[in-house]
């Protein structure tokens, strides 16, 4: 693999694989990413599997008014978390067009995911 085709790598890759509202995984994974960034870590985020639905527009409060995670996602830039990836295979499974997602993530094809993982010294999966 040549360097010019490899994604830019940070210190910590956080992989988010869960949908909003159905569980606390997305929120708890995001909390780790935000705290790591606040500590000066260069954090990359990869939305994988059901996690890609976190980027769907027009989310709102949950069953009993639980907070949406969308406002937290909008804070990522403030925390200097700028590397946002989304899994191509998951997008096509859900029939989602990358252009209609929040935050304009970069789409990673299958091979590029392994590459992103390889380039990060630390990876946490949620």
């Amino acid at each position, binding site marked *: 693999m040549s360097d010019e085709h490899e994604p830019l790598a940070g210190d910590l890759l956080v992989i988010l694989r869960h949908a909003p*509202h*159905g569980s606390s995984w997305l929120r708890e994974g995001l909390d780790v990413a935000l705290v790591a960034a606040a500590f000066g870590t260069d954090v990359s985020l990869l939305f994988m599997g*059901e996690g890609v*639905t976190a980027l*769907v527009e027009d989310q709102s409060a*949950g069953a009993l008014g639980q907070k949406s995670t969308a406002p937290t996602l909008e804070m990522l830039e403030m925390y200097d978390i700028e590397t946002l990836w989304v899994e191509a295979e*998951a997008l096509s*499974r*859900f*029939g989602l067009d990358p252009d209609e997602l929040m935050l304009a993530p970069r789409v990673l094809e299958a091979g590029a995911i392994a590459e992103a993982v390889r380039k990060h010294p630390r990876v946490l999966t949620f």
Partner: protein
Amino acid sequence: MKLHIVNRSPASHRVHEQALAAMGPEDRLLLIEDGVQGGLPQLVRHFEAIAGRLYAQREDLEARGLLGRCDGSVQVVDVDGFVQLTEQAEHTLSWY
């Protein structure tokens, strides 16, 4: 008629297959929580066998920004409609 309730996404889990295997010809299936992802046009094909008997909970679609994306073949019901479905069914089964 029994009401089957599925709260997991067909994109990640095979739980919906268990529900389908257990359904009789009159039974209905309600998607709630992450299960409502199954109402997306790309995923609703998993429920072809029960066309006309597939429901999804409105509040859960809304919270996820999926209400406008839900396939037209899915009957969208709010929580009051959920209670009505349980009234009409002689029993409910949950698949999680």
